[in-house]
């Protein structure tokens, strides 16, 4: 129990710290691929996936633990990921983003988190469980990409790593844009940790390493898995209302750690303040949270569980989920950002005409 508490909290706190300081936001990343044709955050995600993939499969090859990709509940993954994508735009952050923004003092994220935990718990053990199970019934036997194609996992990983290396090389070759920054008030390590703008590719590299470390740390406590947000978030609520200690596992301390790590990072860099959303944002956050809980529950993972971890494990679930999650964010972005601005433009034209 002690080990679970300590390693879970430390791993989570590291992640929360790095994500807060590195502004690692997948919601924003997916959204900007569409809105501003900016793929940097998506490329950063690919780096984190590549590092974790090599790291975890090395550990598996060394027989540190075993991994079984299981089967693929294809309909649940597609529908759930799409709904999750819509939800994270409304909530203003994905599941992990919501945890770390809660640590920055954003009350809107607290509201989103409440909705997310509630529906996730309803899917895992509540009234929505029969629906969840019914949709998951349609499933394909093999979830491993390598197994379907009939090749070694390392071949897939190698091709992927080469592709990511090429993308990174091409990005780094581009001329650097000089972006105005804040005048530094701190020096040395304090400047780097609590002030400096972090390069997203470096942030992603650190996240890839943390995601790799998560596996052996979690496995050591009997939970076979890496980073995960949805089930642990549901587990917290399940434990609180049932008192069943069996709901407490490594993942629970991981997500609590994310909150604490982000809180620490934000406090130390003068970025913590309770911020109260207006009514519309608060309502959107809550709806977003509900959709996040439903979508991630159905898809068997959020942007971290599926988008970062199951992708690194080279499963169909991870990559199909990532694709539909991105489509969901684009769809919601159209209705939340693109259409209102088009309408405003049309209205302006009518007035001038």
């Amino acid at each position, binding site marked *: 129990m002690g080990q679970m508490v300590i390693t879970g909290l430390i791993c989570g706190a590291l992640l929360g710290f790095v994500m807060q300081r590195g*502004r690692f936001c997948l919601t924003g990343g997916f959204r900007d691929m569409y809105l501003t044709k900016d793929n940097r955050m998506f490329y950063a995600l690919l780096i984190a996936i590549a590092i974790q993939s090599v790291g975890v499969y090395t550990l598996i090859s060394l027989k540190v633990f075993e991994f079984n990709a299981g089967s693929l509940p294809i309909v649940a993954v597609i529908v759930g990921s799409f709904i999750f994508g819509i939800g994270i735009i409304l909530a203003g952050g994905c599941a992990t983003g919501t945890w770390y923004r809660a640590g*920055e003092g*954003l009350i*809107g994220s607290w509201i989103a988190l409440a909705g997310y935990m509630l529906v996730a718990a309803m899917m895992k053990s509540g009234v929505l469980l029969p629906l969840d199970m019914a949709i998951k019934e349609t499933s394909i036997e093999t979830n491993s990409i390598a197994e379907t194609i009939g090749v070694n996992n390392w071949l897939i990983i190698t091709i992927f790593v080469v592709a990511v290396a090429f993308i990174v090389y091409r990005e780094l070759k581009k001329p650097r*844009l000089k*972006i*105005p920054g*804040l005048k530094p008030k701190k020096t040395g390590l304090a400047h780097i940790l609590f002030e400096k703008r972090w390069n997203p590719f470096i942030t992603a590299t650190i996240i890839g390493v943390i995601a790799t470390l998560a596996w052996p740390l979690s496995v050591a406590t009997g939970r076979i898995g890496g980073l995960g947000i949805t089930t642990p978030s549901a587990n917290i609520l399940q434990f609180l209302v049932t008192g069943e200690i069996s709901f407490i596992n490594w993942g629970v301390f991981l997500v609590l750690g994310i909150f604490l790590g982000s809180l620490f990072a934000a406090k130390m860099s003068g970025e913590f303040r309770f*911020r109260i959303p207006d009514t519309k944002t608060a309502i959107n956050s809550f709806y977003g949270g509900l959709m996040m809980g439903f979508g991630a529950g159905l898809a068997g993972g959020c942007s971290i569980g599926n988008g970062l971890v199951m992708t690194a494990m080279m499963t169909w679930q991870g990559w199909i989920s990532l694709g539909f999650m991105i489509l969901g964010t684009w769809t919601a972005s159209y209705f939340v950002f693109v259409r209102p601005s088009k309408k405003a433009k049309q209205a302006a034209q009518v007035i001038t005409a």
Partner: protein
Amino acid sequence: MKKILEVMGMVCPFPLVEAKEAIKDLHSGDELEVQFDCTQGTESIPRWAAEEGHEVTEYEQVGEAAWTITIKKK
């Protein structure tokens, strides 16, 4: 002329969306001061200004999670 855009309390990416709208009404050489408190804006607003070729004349953290940035329209 200097226009002040107060978007405190707005979540990302709305401060940036609002800033893009607000700068349209300005003439070249006019300044737009954006007061915001979303942490991601500290990255996305100056990046947008740089990409568009506007000049950032002032950029300051004014308090706990509160920033102000002044952008001179190109």
